[in-house]
């Protein structure tokens, strides 16, 4: 049963915790790695072993291939799980692991390389007969050529930086008049951001859904898909709420197998094994277009686990060890509905700007149908060097309406003080009629921010808050503690003594 002697977890935060848990369930000891910012982190405490790999900036720790491989050797690990982000889609890292006799729990370095650039992935998809967004494959510099292509595609079109990501170097062009200056702007922005001003042209899909397909395959050519995830709700080009199944499946049940087969075709073309995700956009008519392949375990893999009952992490380890995939496509079943909320240290009222601070109080939700994958604890100091995601709260229920009600309930239970988070924002989305109706697209959040009702002031709560605050401050002062010190029962004790004296 023990597939590996020891596995190094080359990540931090909630995903490192999730990987350690999965390894423990497989009875495999875990080796955590940590930077200066993470000495006190949960993943370090939960793993059997821990190795220090450098200073807080990820370039000096979680991105240091040499130190991670050195730690693996020093501790006698024989495999590495990269999680997501950091080195997870770095072909050089995967290759280095293989060369050093460490099993990389993910696809081959070659697959990562083949799927690494969007352009290469797009060519693979075309070779596999999978639809892609119409557009140019090569960078366009000549204005004349650009005009011809754009006219062929039909406006609106989208300009994209060839080397890009994160929305930089992107421009929407609605008519030929705007084209030339837009190319100039996009190109110079791309030049500044990525050192390359190459720009290509795509048909713009208006208000698309972002839907992706989860895949897993083994080294023996077996490959299955686990259905779709709806990931349209995004801010700053990052997902914030994901679902399985997509609400679109209710009206277009044929999409799952069509997209699933397309995703498997692309993966097969790339000789893919382990877990991966094919990202698509879907237009208003239900036509889908392949975008790219993410060659790692996705942040939002949990909603697929909840609905299919398949543990993706267990399977990743199994197939990395050379095992045969224990399930066939026909055995995979989808039950009920799952929703994930990414809980982030950010301020939705201030453009989703990252916040920080120390967690003063923490209370995470529980009970039926709730899964929390979290790196939090009371006293946790949010490091400003990394992604602001603190935890993932997932719910499952028999249908989507109940899942939304449960998600709302669980968000109400979730309490984090000391750090500003997006919990309230997430809760308000659960009340939004558009969200409840499942009318989702990548422009959902800007629309939601405009239409969401203002919260009515509540003078009664304000008055009570004033009273509680005064009692709290008085009790803290009376006990001779500073504002920061918190000792249990101080007000209760004070009430039992001081107040009793006043009232009797």
């Amino acid at each position, binding site marked *: 049963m023990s597939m590996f002697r020891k596995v190094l977890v080359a990540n931090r935060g909630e995903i490192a915790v999730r990987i350690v848990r999965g390894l423990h369930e497989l009875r495999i000891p875990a080796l955590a790695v940590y930077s200066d910012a993470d000495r006190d982190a949960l993943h370090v405490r939960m793993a059997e072993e821990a190795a220090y790999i450098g200073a807080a900036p990820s370039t000096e720790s979680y991105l240091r291939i040499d130190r991670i491989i050195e730690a693996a050797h020093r501790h006698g690990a024989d495999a590495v799980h990269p999680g997501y982000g950091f080195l997870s889609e770095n072909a050089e890292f995967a290759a280095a692991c293989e060369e050093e006799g460490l099993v990389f729990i993910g696809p081959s370095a070659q697959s990562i390389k083949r799927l690494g650039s969007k352009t290469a992935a797009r060519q693979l998809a075309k070779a596999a007969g999978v639809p892609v967004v119409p557009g140019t494959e090569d960078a366009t510099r000549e204005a004349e050529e650009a005009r011809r292509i754009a006219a062929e595609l039909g406006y609106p079109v989208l300009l994209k930086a060839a080397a890009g990501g994160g929305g930089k170097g992107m421009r929407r062009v609605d008519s030929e008049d705007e084209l030339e200056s837009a190319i100039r702007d996009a190109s110079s922005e791309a030049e500044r951001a990525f050192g390359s001003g190459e720009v290509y042209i795509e048909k713009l899909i208006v208000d698309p859904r972002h839907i992706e397909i989860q895949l897993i395959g083994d080294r023996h050519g077996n490959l299955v898909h686990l259905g779709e995830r709806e990931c349209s709700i995004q801010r700053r080009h990052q997902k914030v709420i994901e679902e399985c199944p997509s609400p679109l499946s209710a009206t277009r049940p044929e999409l799952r197998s069509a997209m699933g087969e397309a995703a498997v075709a692309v993966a097969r073309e790339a000789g893919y094994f382990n877990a991966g995700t094919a990202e698509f956009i879907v237009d208003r008519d239900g036509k889908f277009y392949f975008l790219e392949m993410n060659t790692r375990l996705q942040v939002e893999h949990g909603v697929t686990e909840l609905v299919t009952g398949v543990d993706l992490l267990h399977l990743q380890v199994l197939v990395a060890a050379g095992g045969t995939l224990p399930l066939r496509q026909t055995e995979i079943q989808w039950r009920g509905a799952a929703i994930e909320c990414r809980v982030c240290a950010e301020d939705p009222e201030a453009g989703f700007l990252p916040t920080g*601070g120390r967690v003063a109080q923490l209370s995470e939700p529980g009970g039926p149908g709730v899964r929390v994958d979290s790196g939090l604890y009371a006293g946790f100091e949010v490091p400003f060097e990394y992604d602001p995601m603190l935890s993932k709260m997932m719910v499952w229920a028999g249908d989507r309406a109940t899942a939304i009600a449960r998600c709302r309930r669980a968000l109400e239970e979730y309490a984090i003080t000391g750090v500003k988070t997006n919990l309230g924002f997430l809760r308000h989305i659960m009340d939004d009629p558009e969200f409840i109706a499942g009318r989702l697209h990548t422009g959902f959040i800007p629309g939601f921010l405009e239409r969401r009702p203002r919260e009515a002031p509540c003078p009664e*709560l304000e008055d009570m*808050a004033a009273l509680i605050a005064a009692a709290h401050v008085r009790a803290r002062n009376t006990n001779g503690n500073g504002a920061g010190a918190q000792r249990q029962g101080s007000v209760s004790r004070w009430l039992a003594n001081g*107040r009793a004296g006043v009232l009797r």
Partner: protein
Amino acid sequence: MNWRVVVGDREIPIDLAKLPDMREVEPGVYSVLQDGRSFLFRVAPVNGAVLVSVAGRDYKVVASDPRAGGRHGRHTLGEGRQNIGAPMPGKVIRVLVAEGDAVQHGQGLAVVEAMKMQNEVRAPRDGRVVAVKAKAGDAVTAGAVLLTIE
């Protein structure tokens, strides 16, 4: 003995001799039963005040002990000198102005980076830079003074 308590902009008179059925059930967590209804308040310190959270709402409250002589008095800001703080914990990437510079409302003063995102700190009004307290490369906490304008 009445406390001076300010919630947002509103000053609320408080009589601490009249408290509801309240229990500090965990440190800084208060269960309040009033007229048969149950409320859970969480109190956490925030920059010289406390943030009170209840029913998904947050109230920033400045509560001044009458015996302490108004140590937490109302802030006086906006007229004369004004400190410009970091909007979030992070690293100062660039300072865009120098002491003595005249600045206009909205002008960029410094760039702070956190979690891979750069954010420009802008001038809240017209004025002149009288002190620069941060330099590129400094790690700063949220609210740390970057510079002062007047």
